[in-house]
């Protein structure tokens, strides 16, 4: 399957990219991340000889991982329903913060709001998004894939990816707000908890 020299090169590449692969898998698949990485490594090992540009090995592995995740998603039952995004189309987190004013004494309301989210919080918020919207967001803004490459990787028309990115951003904003509200962290004016840390 692999010559000894290729096997050593694959092992080195896989070890170097392990943390990045796991982080992407965690964003895409949550608790199944480790399993997803294993399957991606298995698939990558089988086709390692076809990798011409070894310098692009990291991105090659990430594309394979995304493909494995996409294939898995197709096998399992469809997502519960086509999520209605009509109600989030008009949602603006920026305006909501101005209107609700959760930090009345803050001079930097919007930055204070975002500053309350840890990486785990962002992970949890992303996990609330339907996979079809989460994946393009992760590939674009975490992995830095160009939109055309996202379309190729997810085997979707470019227009669909652009639309999913647009809706995904809206859903992300809405989910951030809902997460903050549900965590009981947004403190209204005059509240005794006004000075309390609001997330975490």
């Amino acid at each position, binding site marked *: *399957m692999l010559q000894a020299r290729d096997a050593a090169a694959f*092992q080195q590449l*896989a070890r170097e990219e392990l943390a990045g692969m796991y982080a992407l898998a965690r964003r895409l698949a949550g608790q199944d991340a480790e399993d997803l990485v294993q399957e991606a*490594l298995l698939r990558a090992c089988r086709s390692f000889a076809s990798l011409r540009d070894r310098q692009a090995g990291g991105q090659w592995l990430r594309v394979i991982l995304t493909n494995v995740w996409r294939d898995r998603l197709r096998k399992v039952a469809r997502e519960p329903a086509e999520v209605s995004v009509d109600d989030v189309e008009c949602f603006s987190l*920026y305006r909501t913060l101005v209107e609700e004013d959760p930090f009345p004494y803050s001079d930097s309301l919007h930055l204070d709001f975002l500053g309350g989210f840890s990486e785990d919080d*962002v992970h949890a918020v992303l996990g609330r998004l339907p996979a079809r919207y989460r994946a393009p967001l992760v590939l674009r803004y975490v992995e830095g894939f160009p939109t055309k490459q996202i379309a190729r990787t997810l085997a979707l028309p470019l227009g669909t990816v652009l639309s999913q990115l647009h809706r995904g951003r809206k859903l992300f904003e809405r989910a951030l707000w809902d997460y903050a509200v549900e965590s009981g962290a947004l403190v209204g004016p005059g509240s005794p908890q006004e000075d309390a840390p609001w997330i975490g």
Partner: protein
Amino acid sequence: MDRVISCAEAVDRLWEFLDHGLDHHDHRAVEKHLAFCVRCCGELEFARQLRCLLGTQTAALPADVEVRLAQFIERLTDSAATEGTA
């Protein structure tokens, strides 16, 4: 001549604007709108911060997971190399 767009149109395109994903005319229209609209400039800065928040990733790999995956890679490459020489 550049098209004049409303705040709603400008805000709707801020992420694409930051991503350089708009065509030349739309990019220019948003740019011109931002030149005179302070409120939308605030939204632009917020969109920029949101993108940063979304991209936050420390790529921490738990030690136990790292050990298991490293062992998996070793087994995988040993097996592949054995097949390759057979």
